[in-house]
């Protein structure tokens, strides 16, 4: 892998969004990944609809949680994702109003990525932002810097938050993942979380996945 990479600098990442009082992080993680995959394939960045997933992915549970793997399937079955403008975020479950005619983006498949963080970094630099899930220990009070909680406090077995890896690098020799969160730009470092890279911190390597756009 290259020593550092940041998809924000390449124009592959939309602005930080806010899930509001709703456990819909899984939808934001997946739309962020699809936005990146579509950008790499088609060259244009579209902000995509999380509300479509909340309303129309019947396997997941909207604000009560969901899984990226189910969301990819739902996007395939539905026939694509509408844009944020066409199907805007409300932060609560509503009746599904997806229209195939308005779908702007499709995916062909989804893949599970290696748990090796070197391989994850290599994949990210070449293929785009990665959907991951982490243990959110300490994030309620996180303000800035690279988080590296003790492993017993941030167990990989207690994953409870889905986010998007958009880059990696080193700050003063401390390796980090740059993570796009969905709690608004007024949290963390302008909405981003920086987590130690290379130690499996908070289970960042346990549920890495991506959509595939052919």
């Amino acid at each position, binding site marked *: 892998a290259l020593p550092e990479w940041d998809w924000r600098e390449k124009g592959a990442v939309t602005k930080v969004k806010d899930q509001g009082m709703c*456990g819909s992080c899984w939808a934001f993680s997946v739309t962020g990944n699809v936005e990146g995959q579509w950008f790499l394939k088609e060259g244009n960045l579209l902000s995509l609809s999380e509300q479509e997933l909340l309303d129309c992915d019947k396997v997941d549970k909207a604000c009560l949680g969901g899984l990226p793997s189910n969301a990819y399937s739902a996007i395939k079955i539905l026939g694509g994702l509408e844009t944020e403008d066409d199907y805007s975020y409300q932060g609560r479950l509503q009746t599904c109003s997806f229209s195939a005619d308005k779908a702007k983006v499709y995916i062909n498949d989804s893949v599970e990525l290696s748990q090796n963080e070197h391989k994850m970094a290599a994949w990210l630099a070449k293929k785009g932002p990665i959907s991951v899930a982490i243990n959110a220990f300490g994030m309620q009070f996180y303000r800035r810097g690279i988080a590296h909680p003790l492993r017993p406090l941030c167990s990989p077995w207690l994953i409870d938050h889905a986010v998007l890896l958009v880059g990696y690098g080193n700050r003063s020799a401390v390796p980090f993942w740059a993570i796009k969160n969905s709690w608004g730009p*007024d949290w963390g470092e302008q909405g981003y979380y920086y987590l130690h890279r290379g130690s499996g911190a908070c289970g960042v390597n346990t549920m890495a996945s991506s959509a595939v756009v052919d």
Partner: protein
Amino acid sequence: APAPPPAAGAQAPELAPAELLAPARFALEMYNRDRPAGTRAVLGAVRGRVRRAGRGSLYSLKATLEETPCNDPTVCQLPVSKKTLLCSFEVLDELGKHVLLRRDCGPVDTKITGAGVAEDAGDFTVKMTSIFKDFVITYNRTYETKEEAQWRMSIFVNNLVRAQKIQALDRGTAQYGVTKFSDLTEEEFHTIYLNPLLKDNPGQKMRRAKSVEDP
């Protein structure tokens, strides 16, 4: 050879202080981590027990720590705890490598210190009220009743202490403190913002991606 683990319900033997020094010093080091030089605590009395299993030893320690005063309310412990703290630590020693599993410190009963403490506590309340007001303004919070505002402030103060503990146990460069979630209990935060399905649901099986180094 390690001693056999004690039978269920049996108390592990209390150890002589010399045997507790290494884990106690480690616990103190973790406690003092990231504290400014002038505010570091020193170790007082120590007692404790050990449970040994396999290659590891779990030390349950009770220790008193003596703290020097500190005036910044976003950094300091409660003023009543600034002199002597009674701490419970659990330290795992695996092949000589220590890990702090639990740290719980509280003030030793200092009622006898009298008026000085009362003044400090009053000063602390004023400072906390000011910080909470800043939080309410910054994040545009509104509470329906005075009682709710007081309840939220008590959560806010507890959360500042929690953030300090998380800060003390972080091995990176992260800073923890007041955020827009600082008036929520841990349970509220988990229920509203997090996703419990992730930890126990495998979801749909996906095929493995090819490594990017593959030809």
